[in-house]
């Protein structure tokens, strides 16, 4: 399996099949990235992200992480989007202004869906970059260095940011009246392997 760097290189040399494969590999993560924060615009923003990638493709220097680079673009897109639509900070509830009905699975996972919703709601109260730190670490599986690159802070600060983020989350969940145990369980939602593992 070719690495991101290899595919990118081939694409720069004009190989569209490689470009397609590279885009395909990452497009869902980017889509999901946008879906949790701007669901109605997720597809558009995704397309814009990749178009931006295309435009910048030939200027990219050696990359430590393609993925981080891509998420960096996405983050900028998101910030632009919020500015343009007049929102300083996306405080949408987890279900969003245009709810994408959670396609859920039956019975046992119902509780989990409930918890996820609560968690997302709590997360929407966080500062964006703190939120990103959480998402990128726990849901997209980025390394500390990659996360730092995306949100443009020194790598060593990530751990403490994560701690602060979790703290704030706990406060949020508490303020929703959850018991200690529920909070813990909800917090566990943060941890999961990435789709496809």
């Amino acid at each position, binding site marked *: 399996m070719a690495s991101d760097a290899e595919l990118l290189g081939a694409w720069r040399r004009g190989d569209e099949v490689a470009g397609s494969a590279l885009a395909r590999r990452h497009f*869902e993560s980017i889509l999901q990235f946008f879906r949790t924060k701007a669901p109605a615009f997720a*597809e558009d923003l995704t397309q814009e992200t990749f178009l931006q990638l295309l435009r910048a493709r030939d200027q990219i220097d050696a990359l430590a992480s393609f993925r981080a680079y891509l998420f960096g673009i996405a983050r900028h897109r998101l910030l632009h989007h919020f500015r343009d639509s007049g929102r300083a900070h996306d405080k949408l509830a987890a279900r969003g202004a245009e709810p994408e*009905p959670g396609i859920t*699975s*039956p019975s046992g996972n119902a509780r989990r869906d409930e918890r996820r919703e609560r968690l997302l709601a709590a997360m929407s109260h966080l500062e964006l970059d703190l939120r990103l730190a959480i998402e990128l670490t726990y849901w997209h599986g980025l390394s500390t260095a990659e996360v730092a690159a995306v949100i443009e802070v020194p790598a060593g600060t990530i751990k403490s940011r994560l701690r602060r983020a*979790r703290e704030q989350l706990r406060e949020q969940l508490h303020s929703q009246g959850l018991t200690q145990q529920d909070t813990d369980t909800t*917090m*566990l939602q943060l*941890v999961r392997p990435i789709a*496809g593992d």
Partner: protein
Amino acid sequence: METGRPQRSAEDSRQRVATLSDEALTASVDDVRQAGFAPLDPVQRQRAWARLEARLFERTKTQVLLDRFVVLDYLGAGGQGRVYSAFDPRLDRKVAIKLLLPSTDLEAMSRVIREARTMASVADPNVATLFDVGRFEDDNGKGVFLVLELIEGPTLGEWLAQRRPWRAALAQVIAAGRGLAGAHAVGVVHGDFKPQNIMIAKDGRPRVLDFGLSIFRRDMPAGDDERTHGFVRGTPAYLAPEQLAGGGASPASDQYAFCVTLWEALVGTRPFSAKDFRELAVAKRAGPPAMPRDSHVPLRILELCRRGLDPDPRRRFSTMTDLLTALEAASSVHRRVAAIALGAGFAAAMLAWLQHTPAACDESANLFAPERRAAVEAAVVTTATPEARVTWDRIGPQLDEYARAWTDLHAQACASEPERSDGIRDRRMGCLRRAERAMRSTVDVLANADAQLVLYADDLVEELPSLDACERAEGAAVVAPPDPMQAAAVEAVRSQRALATTLRVGSELDRAAAALAEAQRLASGIDYPPLAGEIALEQGAIADAQGRYVDAATAWSHALDSATSAGQWAEASEASRRLAFVVGVRLAEPDRAMVYAEIARGLILRTRDPAAEPKLLSTQCALQLQRGTLSEARESCERALALFEEQQENDTSDTIDARAALGMVLVVQGELTFAVELLESLVDDFDRRFGKRHIRTANAHAMLGETLRRANDLDAAEAEIREALATLTEIAGPVHPLAGQWRSNLGAVLSARGRREAAMIEFREGLAIIEQTLPANHPHIAVARMNVGHALHADAKAREAALEFGGALVGMQSSFGPQHPLVAHARHNLGASLIDMGCYRAAEVHLRDSLAIRERVFGPAAVETAFTRHTLALSLNGQGRREEARAAVERGWTDLDALLGPDDPQVAVVTLALGVMMREDGDAAGSVQRLERVWPAQADREDPNTRAPIAYALALASFRVDPSAPTWRDFAERARAGYREFGARGSERLRELEAWIEAAEKRSPAASTWRVPLPPASADCPALEVAG
């Protein structure tokens, strides 16, 4: 700061967070994948990718495929999946595809697939057809998708939003309800029925979507910030209270949702409103909503709706079908063929009926042409009985109206487009042809009627098939015979069959059998499957009418099989219902019959014939009565009658059956007053409708008489039966099978009043009439012989009684088989007579067989069983097996006394035997005690049969206890008086008694050891037949 509850400080919370370190969090990964994102379904993903790729690489979008389907547009998302329109290149049509996402709950997934497959097998006009279920797999997992009929049109909610007249709204919701009922019939529950799940297709017919997918739903109540306890699936406004409480979906909860929808559709607002989930649950649990104050909707409809909104699911309607039937009846959506006042005959052109080919569309059909009409009138009226004219005045207009309604429908059907793909026209025409055949054969038969047949004229008219069914055009698709030659042959068979039916209803059973045999003969040369079921159905009916119940069951069983294979739901439904009755009631195997009743219930849904429901309920009532589950029986009967009333079928023969059954239930329940009232009202109804001199009125009197007899009002019972007989004699002459039955019943009444000789006359003459009018092995003959036997036995003519009982036994066995309770009854009676003859050994054999049957059928401690056990004991006693006998008598006494109490005549009989044995075994005091207990009730009875021997036994026993007390003399006197009443046959006993009194006066020792001799063991006993 208050004591007790510590405030949380920011410091504390930080501490707590710190205790859950990164490592701990990372390490404690739970097994849930994709906790963060709501997963994309593969179509979503593909489409998004296709769009991105197209834009990125400036190409045209590639097609997104799911299996073989080409995904077109995104239609929307429901609670459990996204829906796309798609194109199926294989079948060249557009479909809708709904994707359900993968799950770790494999069981739930399999369940959805199973239900989907079941739903796919239901081609219900009101259910969105499910074409297929598919699985898909992509790099994110496996999932399931459903391929559905693509319905273009508004949801019911959207449709209703444009103000609709309540009748139209009702019709639509009822139609949707039928889809629901159809699914229930195959065992699938919807779980989330609501207006958004019903779509009105282009043809105007509503389709219900999303059956059984409620397990996938997760619509949280809007605006609810509170936590929900438990997990509730579905849209709260429509959920039943039991679902809100966390219970699962069921047909009853579907009904609830249906009623919420209906209410909303009719009234315009939701029945329950609340600001949050909890309040909603409370409101629903409090009960159905109040009636709206200013609604155009008839209250009776809303009332039905409210029943479905009862918080207790058991108090809602039993099935959706019940509810729908009630709704339709209440809204008079149904058109009845009403009898109109005297009208002109039908004038039209010539007809094709002479050749008995069905009216084609280019001819004008004339079902009741003037010359035929005149012929029928003449035939009926010239029977020259006074009620003939009245009969004609009644049936003439009914026949006119039927012909007229038929002609209208026929014209409409002919005018409609021939090529409608859903086959409505074919079904209508098939139905109309059937009605035409029935009408023709009825007219033919009536035109040649004799006085006997005219008695049944009303039955004949009632038997005409309902034209409403033709209008509804429901039922199985008609499979036409392929070529015209064969079509004509099939028509001929069916005409013969119709003739057979008409003759049977007119009670001409022999002619009916002949006509059917002819039909059978004609059918044997044709390969057209539906005929087999049709013929078998009629065969069963004829056999049943002739009392050949085993044959009837066989025939109906065939009919059920054939009709089911040929998809003839109406025939199958009738066959299973009749089968349930004949097996359960006539052949007394109610457990086996329950299976058929279940089948009938399922088939009713297929036929969608509202008239079938009360008939089935009536049958179920009879079955439940047979099984002894009285409260169920009562409920079934009452419901049947309510439905009959709603359908305005108050005085048909089916209603008679239901009322008679209910009357029987009431009698067995001990509600004798109600039973009598019920039958009295039946008499009134018939009197009013048909007049005094009608066979149905007479029948009603007879049934009332029978009920009164059981209620022990013997005066009134005698009067009613005499009335019935008088009427019958007037209108039908003295020789009629019913006359035979009723005279037999009259005999039973007279016998209970102690008028032996009169009773015997009635029994004998009744039997003679029955033997004359019914076929040889008819069970009624056996029953009548039993009655004669009873009377002989009571007259101490044991040998003659035994002969009758033996004959009855043979008849019973041939009609019902060797294990039937009536066979047990016959054997019991035979055994009792044999005992009196001194044939103890033979008696024992029969009694043991009877006991075995009764133990099995009634249980070991039932009255009949106990009594047989007692009688068996007597046969043992006669053989000298005293200990066995005594033990059995004790047991019999215990059971019967517990069941019936000391005032019951049967207990008296058993006590007598026990008392005698006790005294003979030396316990005179005990004997006195037992006998005195039953004496008061016997002392006042008209009938000396038991009174005298008990008095005798008491005299003997009290003498043993204390010869000096005057007690024994009193009893002796009573005994003497009693035996005198016997007349000639009591003379021997009387002499014996006198002799004993003399001895007792003299205090001779013989008086104390006196034994009433048993009949001596006889050498002249009938040959033993091997039991069973």
